[in-house]
C-alpha cells in the first residue's frame, strides 16, 4: 500500500525535521519482519537533509513482525527516549511490542497510519482477497452486511490498540492517508509534545 508508506514517511520527516531543529537526536529504523537498515544517529540542523534522503530511500518490505523487531531494537538501543512507532499495526503481535517498549522504559507514540480504502473497502461481490504482505488468499463474497462487520472488526482492532496505549501511558494517534497533511502534523506535534 504505497500511499500509506509515503504518508507515514512525510509525517516522520516533519517530526524528524523539527527534532533536529531543536537539537534533539534522531534515528530512523525501518522494519518489516525485522529491523532493516538503520540510519545514523542524526543530530544538528545540518543532518536534516540526510534525514530526508534516508526516509525517501525507505521501501516496502515484507510481512510485519513487531515483536521480533522490538526485540532487535531493544537489543541495539539502550538509551531511553521517545519512540514514534509508525505502523498500520496489522500484526497480531503488536501488543507484545508495545509492552516490551513500556517495560524497557521508553516513551512511545503509536502513530497508526491507514489507507482510506482500508477503512471503507471499495470492492463488493464475489472476490479472492489476497493479503499484500503474506500473500495469503481468502475467497469470499463481500456483501453490504459483510462490509459492515468488517468495519466493526477494524474498529475493534484499533480500539484494542488505543486501550493498550492508554494502559501503558503511551500516545496513540490515528491518521488516514487522505487527511490534510499540514493540519495533521500540527496535531501530531502537539499530541507528541513537540509543540505546545
Amino acid at each position, binding site marked *: 500500500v504505497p500511499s500509506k508508506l509515503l504518508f507515514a514517511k512525510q509525517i516522520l520527516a516533519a517530526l524528524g525535521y523539527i527534532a533536529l531543529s531543536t537539537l534533539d537526536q534522531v534515528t530512523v529504523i525501518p522494519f518489516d519482519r525485522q529491523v532493516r537498515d538503520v540510519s545514523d544517529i542524526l543530530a544538528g540542523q545540518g543532518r536534516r537533509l540526510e534525514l530526508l534522503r534516508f526516509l525517501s530511500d525507505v521501501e516496502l518490505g515484507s510481512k510485519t513482525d513487531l515483536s521480533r523487531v522490538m526485540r532487535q531494537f531493544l537489543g541495539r538501543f539502550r538509551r531511553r527516549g521517545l519512540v514514534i512507532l509508525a505502523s498500520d499495526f496489522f500484526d497480531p503481535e503488536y501488543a507484545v511490542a508495545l509492552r516490551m517498549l513500556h517495560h524497557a522504559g521508553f516513551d512511545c507514540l503509536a502513530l497508526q497510519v491507514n489507507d482510506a480504502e482500508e477503512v471503507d473497502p471499495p470492492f463488493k461481490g464475489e472476490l479472492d482477497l489476497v493479503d499484500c504482505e503474506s500473500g495469503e488468499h481468502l475467497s469470499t463474497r463481500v456483501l453490504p452486511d459483510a462490509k459492515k462487520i468488517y468495519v466493526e*472488526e*477494524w474498529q475493534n482492532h484499533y480500539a484494542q490498540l488505543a486501550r493498550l496505549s492508554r494502559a501503558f501511558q503511551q500516545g496513540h494517534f490515528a491518521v488516514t492517508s487522505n487527511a490534510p497533511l499540514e493540519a495533521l502534523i500540527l496535531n501530531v506535534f502537539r499530541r507528541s509534545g513537540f509543540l505546545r
Partner: protein
Amino acid sequence: MRLFGLPPLRLLVVAMVPTLWAIALYMLKLANKRESVAYLLLWQRVVKRVGSGRGLRRFETSMSLFLQLAFIALLTLAVGRPRFAGQQQAGRAIVFVLDNSASMHAFEGRKERFEIARARLSSLLANLADSDEVALVVTAPPSVLVPLGPRTASFVAAVDRVRAAEEPGQLGEAVKEARALLSARQSLHPGSANGVHIITDGSEALPQFLDSLPMAVDTVGRARENLGITALGARLNPSLANTVRVFVEVGNFGTRRGRADLRLSVDGHLFAVTPVELGPGSRLQRSFSTALSERGELSARLDRITIDGAADALAVDDVANASMPRNGEVKIGLAATNPFIVSALVAQSRYRIEPLDAAHIATQNRDYAAVLIEGALPAQLPPGGYVIFAPTGGAGDLPMRVTSTLAQPTFTDWRDDHPALRSVSLADVVVARSAKVVLGSDTTALASFFDEPLIWAVDDGRRRAVVVGFDPSDSNFPLHAGFAVLIYNAIAWVSADSPASAPERTRVIDARESDIAPTKLSAQRGSPSSSPRFIDRELWPLCLWLALALLLIEWWTYHTRVTS
C-alpha cells in the same frame, strides 16, 4: 394455456442455445476477481462471523444465473405465443355476436368501426382450437348468419360477407338468438363449455339477463363527434291544398358545437337549404312547406358539416329519405252525426265522406278506408278499419265488453308512441262520462284513467279500430287541436292496409345509432359480475414484461453486488 407459435420441441431447441451460453459464461465468471487487502486477518474474522456462503447465501451466488435462465425461458415462451383460455377444453361452443348496426359505420381514424370489429373477429377465429364450434349472429337485423358448427372456410367467408347495416341494431335480441343456440347445444352436450363473445361499439346497453350468460365483450371505438338527421317526415298540409309539410330533426351527439347546411330535395330537386347550428347534445327541429309531388322521394342531407376541431365520425346519418304522402282521396264512411266529428272530417280535403247507417254496415261497406261510428255498434263488424266514439249501445263482436259508465274520468296515462296518438296531447282534456269497458285479447289501451281505458285500439288481424270511450260532446276534447289530429291519425292507422293507403317508406338512422359514444356499455361492463367468462388472451406481452422485469432485477442485484 396453449402455444400458437413454435411447437414445444422447437422451442426447447431454441432455448437450448442461449441457456448453454449463459451457463458457460457463468462458469467462466466463477473465477473471482482478486483484491489486495492490507490485513487478511480482519476479513478472516468477518468470514467467521458471517459464514462462508451456506444455505440461502449459496443461492444468492447463483441468483444471477437463475435470473438469466428465467429471462431466457420467458423470451422463449413469448416466441411460442402462449394463450390463456379460461374454460379451455376441447369442444367449446362460442357464439360470436357481431354488431353491424348503423353506428358501426363510424370512422375510427381511417377505418370504420365495423372493419375493426371484423378484423378482431378474424383474429379471434384464428386462435380457436380445431375442436371448437362457432356461430355468427349479427344485430341489424338480429339474425343467425351461421349456426353452431366447426370453424370452416365457409364460416370465414360468411364473416367476410357481413356488412354494417344502415339501421338500428338490436343487441339484446341478437344475444337472445345466441343464447338459444347455446341452449340447444347444451341440451345435446351437457357440461360442455360455451359462451358468447360480443364485438360491439357499445352504443347499445346490454340486457340484464346477460349476467347469467358466460360472455366476453370486445368494444371497438370511442366517443366521437357526430351530427345526424334523426327524424324526417312529410304530411299533407290540411290548410293548403297540394302542399306538404316536411318535418326534420337534427341532433348533435358530440361534445362540441357543430354547424351544417340542411338541404332538402324531392326527387333530386332542391327546395330548401338552411344553416343549422347545434350545441353539444342538443336537437333542432325544422319544418318546411313544399309542393306535393306524387310518389316523390323526399331527401334530407347535412352538407358542409363543421365541428369545432373534429370531424363528423358517422356519415350514414347525414342523409335521410322518406316517401312523400299520397294525394289520393280517402273514402270515409260516416255513421255519426256529432258536429265536432263531422267538422273535423270536413276540414280534411282528402276525405270523401259518405253517410252510412250503422245498423247496415255489413251490407253497405263499400271499400271504405275507414268507417266512423258513433254510439251503438252493429252485431257484426266486417273486416276493415273503424273509428268508434262512445260505444254505449254495445261492443258488437269486437273483443271488448262495455259494462257501465265512468263518471268524470281524467287522462292519467296515454301512449304517445302509438300512431293514433302521435302529436296528441290529452293533458287538459276533461270528460264528463265515459264507457267503462273490459278489454279482451287483441286490444291495447291507448289512454286511460288509471286502469280504466278511455281510448283503446283493436287489431284482430281482420279489423282495426280506434275506440274513443266517450262522446266528444261530453268533453272539452273537441276544443283541443289534438281532437282532429286523433281522428286523422286513427283513420290513417286503421286504414293502413286498405287500398286507399300506401305504406310510408322512410330511411332515417335511429337517434340511438347516431349517439355513437360507447357510454352505456362501458358503464355496464364496469359492474361486477360473478358469471364465468371466457378469457382468451395472448400471453406473450406478459412474458416480455416479466422478462424486462427480470432484466431490471438482474441489473439491480448486480450493481448492488447481491450477485456478481
